[in-house]
Each structure stands twice: as C-alpha cells, then as structure tokens.
C-alpha cells in the first residue's frame, strides 16, 4: 500500500567485539558522576533520511544499499533501518 513520502531512521553501531574507546570514556564519566550500575556504554550514530519514495519496501532496499555503500563501514559497524510511512 502506498502512503506518503517515507522517513528512514538509521542506527549505526559498532560490532560487538570492536573496542569502543569513546563509549568506555562515557561510561567512566557516568561512573564519576555517581551513576552506578552502568555496565557498558556503546556509542553509535543516528541518521535520519527524508525520502521521496512512497513504498516502504523499496525505501528499505534503497536505504540498505546506502548503508552498505556509504553510511556504515561494515568492517566495524552494524546498521539497523526503521522505515516510517
């Protein structure tokens, strides 16, 4: 079913096993601020795209290609796409 233009929300995160020194520093800072019980922090990127595409499936395929070619580096990063109609 075609609705209006689609918004894609992309989360890019480091693969598990890849060290995240920034996340580690944030975790240490939180501990220093007195926030106990934070076992780990992983920092990533959030990218929002407004698309002309109105079909959610085609939008997902297109954004998936964007992630593989540019938005994520799949050597070190995973990505997750949410499509909102």
């Amino acid at each position, binding site marked *: 079913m075609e609705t209006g233009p689609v918004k894609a929300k992309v989360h890019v995160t480091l693969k598990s*096993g*890849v*060290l995240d*020194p*920034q996340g580690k*520093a944030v975790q240490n800072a939180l501990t220093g601020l007195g926030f106990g019980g934070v076992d780990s922090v992983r920092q990533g990127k959030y990218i929002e795209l407004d698309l002309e595409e109105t079909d959610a499936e085609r939008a997902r395929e297109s954004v998936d290609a964007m992630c593989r*070619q*540019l*938005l994520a*580096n799949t*050597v*070190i990063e995973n990505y997750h796409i949410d499509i909102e109609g």
Partner: protein
Amino acid sequence: MKSAVIVFPGSNCDRDVAVALEQSTGRAPVMHWHGDPQLPDVDLIVLPGGFSYGDYLRAGAMAAHATSVMPTVVERARKGVRVLGICNGFQVLTEAGLLPGALMRNTNLSYVCRDVWLRVENNRTPFTEGYGLAQVVRIPVAHHDGNYYADDATLKHLADKDRVAFRYCDRDGGFRAPDNPNGSRDNIAGIFNESGTVLGLMPHPERLADPRLGGTDGRPMFDALARALG
C-alpha cells in the same frame, strides 16, 4: 617517474608530499583535484594526509565513496599502478576497499602528534626496499583516527602473507604497549595490498625527508620509489 597527488577538500599534506616526491624524483607531481575523473597516466598515485571532508561520517569515507576521481584510482590500483596512502590517505584506502580493515578513534581518545619508532616488517617492495628488514626508523604521526582494526582472521592473513609494512615499536625494535600510539591491533602502522603495489600507513614519511626538518628517515621511501619506477 611520473606521480600524481590527489587533492581533496581538507587535504593538508599534499604540498609536503609533493616536495618530498620532487626531491627524490627530480620531477614535480601532478596535483590532481578530486573532482576531475580524468587522471593523467602516472606511475604512482598518492593519497595525502589531512582531513578530507572534515572527517564527516568517518575519516576518509566521503573521499573514498563520493569523489569523481576515486573510481579511477581504484581501477588503476587494480591494474597494478602503485598507490601510496598516507594518514588520511590510508583511511581512504581502507574505506575504498583497496586495503583491509579500518582506522578507528585512537584508544586514548587523544590526537597524537609526535615522532614514533617504526620497525620495517617487509622491505621487498618498491615502497620499502630502501630500508633494511627490521630496521627501526623515526617518523612522525599526527592523527586522531589511527587505531588499526581488523578481525583475527584478517590479522593472521596479513601476517602470514607478509603484508605488514611497518609496526609501531620501541627504539630498539621491541614491542611494549606504550610504544603503540593509538591502540592499533598487532601494532600495525602500515599494510600492503595482496600484490604489494598499494601501501597505506598512518605515519608521515614526507614530514621527515629533509635534514632541515630534523630527520631523513622518511626519505628512503621516496628514493626507493624513484629508483623502482624509473
């Protein structure tokens, strides 16, 4: 030997490497703007240091994926044209898939700008034959994202195939953690592609290629390239 230095918006070591190349080859390189896909025929392509596109998205990502010249650079590299990527150039080469792995934020989160010791791990390439095997050289680094990462299988492959060019080391060529300035796995400072025709490294040989700059340990790389490529 004819060479070209690719200039991206934000490159800032393009002129330094041009001076080093001219000093060793007697011929000024072509300074080639990234937006022009018509790259002249050259024997060596250099991707210089700097901060192409302000390191937006990831260091080297925009230069690798969104410039007119890079498809040509990749095609020439696959045909065997020598490609040297220094610092940001190394990041571009990994992003473009010409070299494996990735360069991540330094583990200490600091911008590291100092001379480091490097051990020459393979001196049987046109880039490194001016050095002795296991020779320790002093070359500056200046980067925030020089932390080399590759998975275990890739690291093993690189070691088995003799594709590590340089490792960070101490003055005597040994490995202690403090001598690794950025957290790179296996102390890797530079690697070759499968055929030894592409080299990417984080340190800046062009910055110590003239005694007036305080050292000449970078010069043998450019001299060797000049000899090998005529």
